[in-house]
């Protein structure tokens, strides 16, 4: 039989999804279903002084209006239960839910929602995270000592002394923006009470069992009384980690004893769910003349918005990755997350790593330039290697492959640059041989020294940038980590069918197929012998969330181990079906010691390196990404097609984050609640060439050596683009996203009396055809 691991098996769900046959949460219906409409606060901070639902209840067709008084336990949250299901006394952001109208029709629900009368007393709004930390700032959560959600310090060595002794010291300041998940399918679902009296919620999410836990807590029910089921999930990216409509559906079904459904409009979705954290990072990096990075000091300030969501956990990643993937002896990091009256920030593909490494990777390249080194050489000196000591003072988990990623990326880049590379680059590195750095990177053309070569002939300038990335796979810092799977083997002489039960969400990444491939390979049976039951919290065991790039490695390993155990029983015992349930627990992680900040934060990491070519129009500030090389160590490519899909999709999302996606708020109000104002890249904005480079250096823990990849394309991209812009123009941009105006601001000072130097190409003897838009 052909090996199934590595085969580009086609997605079984693809046809139904592209033909519209697939059932998404918005497609669900049952006879007698009521329609729900949420009444949102629509203001960033206010006390509720009156709530009158009589007019709403009088609308024909309206069955009930639920308010805070109807919620058995009115607080929920993934990490900390600080968010009310329905606000009773105070609203803290525009998307806070105040009431829930249930009606026989959508129109009646909407009419009712418009007539719910809430009287507010506006409270002072705090929308700037730095202002939120000042003494006397308005408190987002009255009763707390301050707006601080969390502070994560990391101390290693003596950064102050090392910086004082360093040959080169650079300071940097970086800002990132909110990012909206913008999954295709807005929040939706259906809930009802089944024959056994259980509340059943059919929806989309990222973790069946966690949704169930939170819903049960809100309703004050034992978990067995709640069933969460997922139908087709139209993307997630971390945006379905927090509850959005699931608990509202459950509440209404439970209170009204009737089926209920809800479908959020895009604007409700964009205002109603959390975003990627905007982070301000100030940092100081020091190195020796020889290019050894000796110290990193960093302060990161993350706007957590109105509720905790996963801020604490994201913040730990920001702190841990403030020094990137570099072996640095002296580190001093303080990361803060604060409450504001903005939309909450939480999980988003990358979970703090993109923000932190936008700063760290930019700083490493800037150090290289300051030292007159090329950006690859400085990385070769400093990148993590097997056994490197993490910022938290313990050795990295084994399987450190960021150097291999970098070399593979540089090698591919040398090929892209064609004639410019030498013989060694063409044939690939021999033993112990190094790929020479392509000249395009060795001296950024826009660098002051390169600029001495004279002005370039047109306003369009090209450059390549390179960056590396690291991201933990799986839960960190002592958060309990496990995945459980059951396999049952049916048949007589041979295995006729195998049933895999595993509560792992297929959010579109294709993990269900991956799991079936792993089980079929382990059992030595064809793929279609393996059936998967994964979408019902009552039928499938808990495999943890679809997040942290963890399902292939965690759920995959549990499925593998359960299949292997079941196969042993099949061979050794008579009983049919042969059944095995296995809980896989990876090596333990620990929280950081509060005094020393030491600990083992993670059991596995993913690594990546990217090279990006841009073209900058130096007279308009437009940046076009032309080519992307994205090199990843995936341990083992279980399904090559899906893997490349993850890389390409990740790069497209990273491109949006880097160049155009800018969720904006002013004084707690959302300025970009739709796709005409919040810009997403389409296929026409996506680089014509995304070149995936896949390394398969087996991970010691992963099934068949596989490790996760999903978040990695998001990590090095922005700093690689920043470096490419610098290579093209000689200027650094340090605020994400790099909008044309910001880029032009960095290049041209067009606000001041104009200097014409930057417009050489916009005038003079250049053929106009050179100014291609």
């Amino acid at each position, binding site marked *: 039989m052909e090996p199934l691991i590595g085969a580009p098996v086609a997605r079984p769900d693809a046809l139904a999804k592209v033909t519209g046959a697939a059932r998404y949460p918005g497609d669900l219906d049952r006879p007698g279903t009521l329609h729900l409409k949420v009444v949102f606060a629509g203001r960033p901070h206010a006390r509720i002084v009156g709530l009158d639902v009589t007019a709403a209840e009088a609308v024909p067709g309206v069955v009930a209006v639920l308010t805070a008084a109807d919620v058995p336990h009115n607080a929920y949250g993934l990490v900390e239960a600080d968010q009310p299901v329905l606000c009773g006394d105070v609203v803290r952001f525009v998307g806070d839910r105040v009431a829930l109208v249930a009606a026989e029709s959508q129109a009646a629900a909407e009419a009712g929602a418009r007539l719910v009368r809430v009287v507010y007393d506006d409270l002072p709004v705090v929308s700037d995270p730095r202002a939120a930390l000042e003494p006397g700032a308005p408190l987002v959560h009255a009763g707390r000592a301050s707006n601080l959600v969390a502070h994560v310090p990391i101390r290693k060595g003596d950064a102050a002394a090392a910086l004082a002794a360093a040959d080169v010291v650079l300071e940097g300041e970086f800002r990132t923006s909110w990012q909206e998940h913008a999954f295709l399918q807005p929040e939706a679902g259906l809930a009802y009470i089944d024959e056994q009296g259980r509340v059943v919620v059919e929806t989309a999410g990222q973790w069946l069992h966690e949704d169930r836990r939170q819903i049960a807590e809100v309703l004050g029910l034992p978990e067995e009384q709640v069933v969460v089921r997922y139908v087709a999930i139209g993307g997630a990216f971390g945006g379905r980690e927090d509850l959005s409509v699931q608990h509202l559906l459950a509440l209404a079904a439970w209170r009204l004893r009737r089926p209920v459904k809800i479908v959020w*409009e895009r604007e409700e979705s964009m205002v109603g769910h959390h975003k990627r954290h905007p982070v301000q990072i100030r940092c100081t990096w020091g190195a020796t003349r020889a290019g050894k990075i000796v110290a990193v000091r960093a302060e990161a300030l993350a706007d957590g918005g109105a509720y905790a969501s996963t801020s604490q956990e994201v913040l730990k990643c920001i702190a841990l990755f403030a020094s990137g993937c570099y072996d640095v002896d002296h580190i001093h990091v303080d990361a803060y997350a604060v409450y504001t009256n903005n939309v909450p920030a939480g999980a988003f593909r990358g979970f703090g790593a993109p923000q932190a490494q936008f700063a760290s990777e930019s700083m490493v390249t800037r150090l290289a330039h300051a030292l007159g080194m090329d950006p690859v050489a400085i990385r070769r000196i400093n990148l993590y290697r097997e056994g490197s000591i993490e910022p938290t003072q313990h050795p990295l988990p084994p399987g450190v492959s960021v150097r291999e990623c970098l070399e593979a990326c540089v090698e591919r880049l040398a090929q892209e640059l064609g004639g410019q590379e030498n013989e060694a680059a063409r044939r690939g590195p021999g033993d112990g041989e190094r790929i020479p750095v392509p000249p395009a990177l060795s001296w950024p053309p826009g660098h002051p020294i390169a600029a001495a070569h004279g002005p370039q002939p047109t306003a369009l300038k090209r450059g390549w940038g390179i960056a590396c990335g690291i991201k933990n796979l799986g839960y960190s810092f002592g958060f309990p980590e496990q995945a459980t799977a059951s396999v049952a083997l049916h048949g007589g002489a041979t295995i006729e069918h195998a049933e895999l039960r595993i509560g792992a969400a297929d959010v579109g990444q294709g993990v269900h197929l991956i799991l079936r491939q792993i089980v079929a390979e382990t059992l030595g049976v064809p793929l279609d012998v393996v059936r998967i039951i994964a979408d019902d919290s009552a039928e499938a065991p808990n495999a943890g969330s679809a997040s942290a790039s963890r399902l292939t490695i965690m759920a995959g390993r549990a499925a593998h181990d359960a299949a292997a155990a079941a196969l042993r029983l099949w061979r050794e015992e008579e009983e049919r079906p042969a059944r095995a349930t296995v809980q896989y627990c990876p090596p333990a992680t620990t929280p950081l010691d509060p005094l020393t900040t030491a600990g083992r934060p993670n059991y596995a990491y993913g690594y990546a390196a990217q090279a990006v070519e841009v073209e900058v129009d130096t007279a308009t500030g437009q940046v076009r990404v032309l080519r992307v090389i994205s090199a990843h160590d995936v341990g083992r490519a279980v399904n090559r097609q899906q893997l490349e899909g993850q890389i390409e999709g990740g790069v497209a999302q990273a491109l949006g984050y880097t160049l155009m996606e800018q969720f904006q708020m002013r004084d707690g109000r959302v300025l970009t609640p739709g796709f005409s104002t919040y810009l997403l890249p389409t296929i026409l904005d996506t680089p014509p060439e995304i070149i995936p480079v896949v390394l398969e250096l087996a991970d010691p823990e992963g099934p068949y050596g596989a490790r996760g990849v999903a978040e990695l394309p998001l990590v090095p991209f922005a700093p690689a683009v920043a470096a490419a812009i610098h290579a093209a123009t000689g200027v650094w941009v340090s605020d994400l996203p790099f909008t044309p105006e910001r880029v032009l601001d960095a290049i041209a000072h067009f606000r001041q009396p104009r200097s014409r130097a930057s417009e050489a190409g916009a*005038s003079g003897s250049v053929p*106009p055809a050179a100014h291609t*838009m």
Partner: protein
Amino acid sequence: MIPSAFDFYAPRTLDEAIALLAEHGDEAKVLAGGQSLIPAMRFRLAAPAVLVDINGIGGLDGLRETNGHLAIGALTREAALEEYTFIRERYPLLADAAHVIADPLVRNRATVGGNLAHADPANDHPAVMLAYGAELAAHGPRGARTIPIDDFFTGMFSTSLEPDELLTEIRIPRPGPGSGGAYLKVERKVGDYAISAVAVQLTMDGPTIRTIRIALTNVSPTPIRAEEAERILTGQTLTDATLEAAGQAAAAACDPSADLRGSIEYKRDLTRVLVKRAVRRAAERATK
């Protein structure tokens, strides 16, 4: 959001359509490609009580080139403009614009007439037609008339069309020898409206600009011509100094507002750069 309720008519002839418009007056809206009107209705920025769908009326679409001009039926889809080589060859300004209006999906539905009648300063055709000095044909209960493009845009989202009049045809004077044109647009992503865009149509006499019209997109409450820039360039050869002076004149003439697309200063500076580039490109095409 779902639009508020409306009555829907799909007339088969121009006369029927005009009769319906005359009957319903201000209450009625013409529906062409629907790519501006439907979003406006969904956002409840427009709530017409009556929609008169003109898509079923024969003869309102298509391109015709006569000796004197190119006639574009009001119902011609944007996508159609991209299909013809003669447009690319003889009407490069129009071809440039057709390629950067919205995205390919929208261009399959959106019409040239709708783009003008909507009179959105962010739309691309108004500046294009201003630069061409086009003439618009309209039909109403009082018969047919033509409107010079310079008299067409009367304010933001308002035109000199009467509520009971239909725009039926756009006539672009056929460019003579030595003519060239260009449309340059800077957008934040493919399919977005312009941060700024510039349309230029000119005729060259050897190295000298004999006539030139320059119009600007989305940098004023209405689509405008950069007349001072035109004056600066007329009768001149292309030098850095004249181009820069024209660019600055256009930047001064526009009246952009600060919004999510950019600051006032950025939009002005962009306009300056685009005027210089578009004039150069148009001139290069003219002398080819």
